């Protein structure tokens, strides 16, 4: 029996059936894989946070190397001492604060609503690390990251990531040669929280000047770099009230 595939009725029926089949196949995959995917995302976040406070398997001159996924949960519990949420200038402890969606909280701030900004306090070798999650815009899509500070407002480590920056250009914000430059930079200029700018005219490619609030930019990634600069600055503005209470310098 030959079907007449030219008829309008056939076309409509075909389209409907196709959409139903495709929709259910996709829904099936999405539901079946969701627990596994969200667990992966949780581990990744823990890895990133630990990375920013210097808990990682990096080797000299090597590439980014996280704590292995199999150990990350234990390591996270070991190093992260307090999970806080900042409301205004007050900080209170909250379980699993690191899972808070920073993007949503920042949107609340923008709309003048009260927001819960997560901040993690880590401890390694008797030293305190204050880890700030960040979220901003790159060239194509979202960029985010974590920055750890000590009481002197000196950067102890950063981790950046992105959704869709250009491979080989903006995507390099998650490479060590970019992130390592932030280590030791101060986010203070006098008493104001200026952050660390990604600067093209920095003229300090080896990054020896740690007081200039600048790191060397990536060639061909101006807008991504500006996004990182803006993201750091915006986050510090929001966390400033709390940071002032712990600052010793």
């Amino acid at each position, binding site marked *: 029996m030959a*079907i007449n*595939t*030219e008829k309008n009725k*056939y*076309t409509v029926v*075909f*389209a409907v059936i*196709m*959409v139903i089949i*495709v929709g259910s*196949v*996709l829904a099936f*995959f*999405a539901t079946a*894989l969701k627990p*596994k*995917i969200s667990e*992966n995302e949780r581990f*990744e976040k823990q890895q990133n946070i630990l990375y920013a406070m210097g808990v990682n398997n990096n080797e000299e001159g090597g*590439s980014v190397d996280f704590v292995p996924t199999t150990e990350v949960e234990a390591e996270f519990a070991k190093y992260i001492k307090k999970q806080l949420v900042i409301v205004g200038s007050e900080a209170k402890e909250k379980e699993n604060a690191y899972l808070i969606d920073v993007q949503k909280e920042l949107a609340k701030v923008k709309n003048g609503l009260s927001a819960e900004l997560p901040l993690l306090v880590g401890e390694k070798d008797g030293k305190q690390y204050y880890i700030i999650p960040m979220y901003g815009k790159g060239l194509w899509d979202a960029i985010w990251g974590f920055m750890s500070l000590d009481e002197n407002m000196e950067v102890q480590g950063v981790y950046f990531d992105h*959704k*869709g920056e*250009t*491979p*080989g*250009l903006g*995507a390099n914000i998650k490479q060590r040669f970019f992130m390592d430059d932030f280590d030791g930079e101060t986010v203070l200029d006098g008493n104001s929280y200026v952050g660390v700018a990604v600067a093209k005219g920095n003229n300090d*490619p*080896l990054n020896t000047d740690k007081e200039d609030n600048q790191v060397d930019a990536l*060639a*061909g990634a101006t807008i991504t770099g500006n996004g990182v600069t803006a993201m750091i600055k915006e986050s510090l503005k929001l966390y400033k009230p709390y940071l002032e209470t712990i600052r010793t310098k």
Partner: protein
Amino acid sequence: MALLSKKDSKLILDPLADNNPITIQVLGICSALAITAELKASVVMALSVLFVLGAGNVVISLMRNIIPSKIRIIVQLVVVATLVIIVDQVLKAFAYELSKTLSVFVGLIITNCIIMGRFEAFALGNGPWKSFLDGIGNAAGYGIILVIVGFFRELLGSGTLFGFKVLGDPVTKTGLYSIGYENNGFMIIPPAALIVVGIIIWVQRSRNRTLIEEA
């Protein structure tokens, strides 16, 4: 007996050189420009397209007699998009690291004109086995060019291959850099890919003059 008949192996081998989707048919240029700044990205993209085109061609070929011709383009798009999303989800669940490198390309795969082109030109008129071979062949032809372009752009633009510093360190001036060599920043921006592809086309056509079209 050979594994593939002469006709079948032609389906795979033709797109690798004499009927290459990028250099001869000039399809898929957009993604070839966008992602070839690094060799690793080129390889990942090539493999993803290999899977999507191979599987997509088979699916379309199986459905070829029941697809209403009026909405065939939409049907093709739905098939590609579904395959790509499923691959992305499975990778996210079981190979999270890899999926992060791949996620950038998901959109690029769906809109890749080679895929739609092969569905339309081949899979709609041929059986599943032939379509599968055609898909693999074309994706491989596309992949080869990506890898060649990625190789030259990463080597000349960043002085690295797969992220390894093969020419020495530009900051501390070791290796080639100690005698005054500089990375060519132009190579990492997309227009450089056009020039590399152009050179490949030139080399290919001067080696095989039958490929030159009559003006």
